């Protein structure tokens, strides 16, 4: 009989805790939904306090948490592309909310992010050493030990990859990721309309004999621009999104403008080298055709000497820069012995 009483008491306590828990849970879910609707992209910003409330293991959670670990001081590092990843995370969150509106997955998964400066405790709790880091905390009363992190080589760092991770872990779909297009459809239509209307007038202007299209100087400027862009590695900088300069790894105060190592380059480096190239070529043309028209002989001589010195220095600089960057030492092959 005592056993039965104890069991009934325990059941009552559990039921009461359950009721209380249910209340607490309803509050938590409601607050999470509220925070979610307030945020820009459906990602709830958590700090230590909020995290302890929403993720506490005392009361079982009915929802899962997908946590994005962020650190604003690392947004400057180009290789990490942390800001981009955070944007993708937001896209996945928005997609999930939209897809599961009114469905079974609603309020079952919440996306949140924690920032290093506000939530150092959480970082220490999960022992997060490297970024980026995304974790999934399953529903229930598991604590941080029960969470699983998203491995970089299993899911790529795109919104689709995050969606795949979420689906694999929770079973709920995120739906299609909608990326905002560069220009809205209306704007495109307006531009197209303007283009069609203006085309005949502009075309007539361009086809006339005195138009800029027939002036060889315009073409020459365009040609030099294409040359400059290409030879200075402009495409490389655009495709790889290289910055203009980097912070020196050893000395954060110094800035590095030239990348040491072949195959990669920084933005400023490209501009400097392109400028040096173009200068020499233009000087050659200049002294061939424009200088002889200068009347004063002394001025001619000065221009000549100036052009020669600058070209010489520029070529020397480019070659020494190339030697430093790639580490190659070009040398001639002199015969060392007869056989």
């Amino acid at each position: 009989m005592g056993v039965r009483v104890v069991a009934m008491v325990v059941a009552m306590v559990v039921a009461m805790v359950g009721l209380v828990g249910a209340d607490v849970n309803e509050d938590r879910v409601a607050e999470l939904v509220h925070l979610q609707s307030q945020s820009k992209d459906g990602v709830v910003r958590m700090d230590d306090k909020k995290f302890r409330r929403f993720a506490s293991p005392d009361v079982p959670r009915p929802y899962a948490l997908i946590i994005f670990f962020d650190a604003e001081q690392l947004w400057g590092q180009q290789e990490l592309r942390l800001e981009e990843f955070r944007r993708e995370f937001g896209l996945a969150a928005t997609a999930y909310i939209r897809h599961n509106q009114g469905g079974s997955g609603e309020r079952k998964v919440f996306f949140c992010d924690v920032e290093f400066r506000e939530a150092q405790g959480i970082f220490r709790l999960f022992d997060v050493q490297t970024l980026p880091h995304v974790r999934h905390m399953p529903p229930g009363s598991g604590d941080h030990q029960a969470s699983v992190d998203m491995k970089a080589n299993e899911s790529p760092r795109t919104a689709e990859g995050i969606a795949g991770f979420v689906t694999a872990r929770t079973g709920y779909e995120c739906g299609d990721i909608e990326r905002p297009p560069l220009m809205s459809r209306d704007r495109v239509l307006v531009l197209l309309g303007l283009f069609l209307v203006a085309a005949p007038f502009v075309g007539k202007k361009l086809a006339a004999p005195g138009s800029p299209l027939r002036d060889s100087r315009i073409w020459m400027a365009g040609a030099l621009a294409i040359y400059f862009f290409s030879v200075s590695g402009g495409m490389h900088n655009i495709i790889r999104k290289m910055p203009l300069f980097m912070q020196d790894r050893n000395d954060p105060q110094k800035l590095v403008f030239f990348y040491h190592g072949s195959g990669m380059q920084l933005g400023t480096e490209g501009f400097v080298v392109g400028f040096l190239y173009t200068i020499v070529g233009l000087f050659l043309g200049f002294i061939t055709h424009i200088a002889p028209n200068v009347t004063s002989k002394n001025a001619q001589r000065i221009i000549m000497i100036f052009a020669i010195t600058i070209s010489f220095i520029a070529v020397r600089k480019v070659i020494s820069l190339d030697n430093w960057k790639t580490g190659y030492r070009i040398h001639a092959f002199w015969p060392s012995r007869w056989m």
Partner: protein
Amino acid sequence: MASTGKETANGQSAKAMGPGTTPITAPSAAKAASWESYYSSVKNFKLKTKQQELLIRIAVLVLIYILAFACRLFSVLRYESVIHEFDPYFNYRTTLYLTQKGFYEFWNWFDYESWYPLGRIVGGTLYPGLMVTAAILYWVLRFLSLAVHIKDVCVLTAPFFASNTAMVAYFFGTELRDRGTGLVAAILLAICPGYISRSVAGSYDNEAVAIFALLLTFYLFVKAVNTGSLAWSLGAAFGYFYMVSAWGGYIFIINLLPIYVLVLLVTGRYSLRLYIAYSSVYIIGMLLAMQIRFVGYQHVQSGEHMAAMGVFFLMQVFYLVEYVKKQLGDPKLFKAFLRVTVTLAVGVGALALIVGLATGYISPWTGRFYSLLDPTYAKIHIPIIASVSEHQPTAWSSFMFDFHILSILFPAGLYFCFKNLTDGTIFIIIYGLTSLYFAGVMVRLILVATPAVCLISAIAISATLKNLSVLLREKAPVYTSTKITAKQKASAKTGADQPLPFQKEGAFLLLLGALYMLINFGFHCTWVTSEAYSSPSIVLAARQSNGERVIFDDFREAYFWLQHNTPPDAKVMSWWDYGYQITAMGNRTVIVDNNTWNNTHIATVGRAMASNEDDAYDIMRQLDVDYVLVVFGGVTGYSSDDINKYGNWNLVILLEPCCVTPIV
């Protein structure tokens, strides 16, 4: 400007008999006299200027020919006559098949030894130009009773065609400006590292022949535009056919020619010569190109070829308009006609294009070439293209490495071209700029830009050297009174009216500077060729700590082990890099090879390699695999082995087609 041949050193003119010979009247005198006359004519042998120039020119061209061939032989001298890299092994195998079985068997070949169990239609999926060229060379040499092995012919095809390309560059330079430019262009192209990289002895790949065909087509086309002759246009069409049969890069030609024609039309340089040249080349070239099965009907169906067709029709409209203008005397009537024609032409053209695209008859640009227009496309959507190291964007040090001073002289050459605009120079400017732009997008395309850069730099060098030597050769003017005569006014530009003691010295100094620069260029090219571009990746060399060289022939040993120790119908699974080599040297069936035409099959192999042993075994049993070949760098420190690859790209390709981003 050179001294005439008549003024010889001893002041004698070219007479048959010189002084000091006395006529002998003995019976044998006739014979002796003829001997004497012959001897003295040899002693006083003096060429006329034109003959001197011809001799020097021919001697230089012969030397350039030999140099272009010789500087590509580093790897043959260091190792042996072996075929390099991976793709050339497939080309070698097909050439072998062609020489053994004949052309029809080759053209209709279905290869069941690769891509097991799918097989591969070889005849319809390759560009036959290279193989047919090598086979023809082989048959010709055999016909002349020179018992060569097909492998040696294949190895030396590339240097042979590089020499021919240098000759074509000479003719092209002559066409653009003058003979001096031609010579400089030939020598620059002969040693430029950008071209050497893909045409060393042993690099038996399509580009070896294709660059020759490219430059030949361009030269013939420019010649056709300059002369307006149908014969040259026909030659250009056949050159284009050779290019289409040799390399997929013919897309560049079929898009560059329309751009060139458009630029000429826009700048008001329409002429009948242009019309004849372009129409003939387009029609005949297109018909010929359709003979290659791999290309098929792409010239009328693929979006990449539509520009040429559009410009062709535009040319017809232009010609019609010009013709009507000549017939109609009344300008007002003509204006009305012009307006109607233009509207109609634009409308019909746009309608045709839209209908074609909408019904799907005209296919859009394929990924390979679309990634040139939108360079970020391949990285997101086709990782197998983005993973190739040759497809990375170019940093400036790569330009410096491959071009050295040519990239500095390029704007000077552009400037000289603009100062002296002709149809030919406009072409080379457009070719140079478009190819340079694409070379910036992909490292591999530096090869296509090399002839243009060499030609334009040659214009700069030749013009500068000519100006400097004109200054040097000027006779010192006689200092007359201060009366300014017309002659002196005319020569005021060159500054010859005042005795400038520094003029000649300055020119001489500049000439020395130019010489120093070109000598350094020669050093650079030789060093780069020797150290960077002459390694057959199938044989590796390294230096031990005591300085001795160690040669690793592991690849070939492994393949020959396969050939000798496995049954003939064994199937070998390996990563696709080694497929061609295994079939060519090991003579065994492979699952995937470098053709990479079936990404799912490659992904299956990748999955087998990346899974644990149980899963992998199931997959391999499904594929009927008997042997697995894995490359391991290990002790030698070979860095591009399979273990290293599995850190990066293999898993990315495995996860296709769902959205993939490289993890680097």
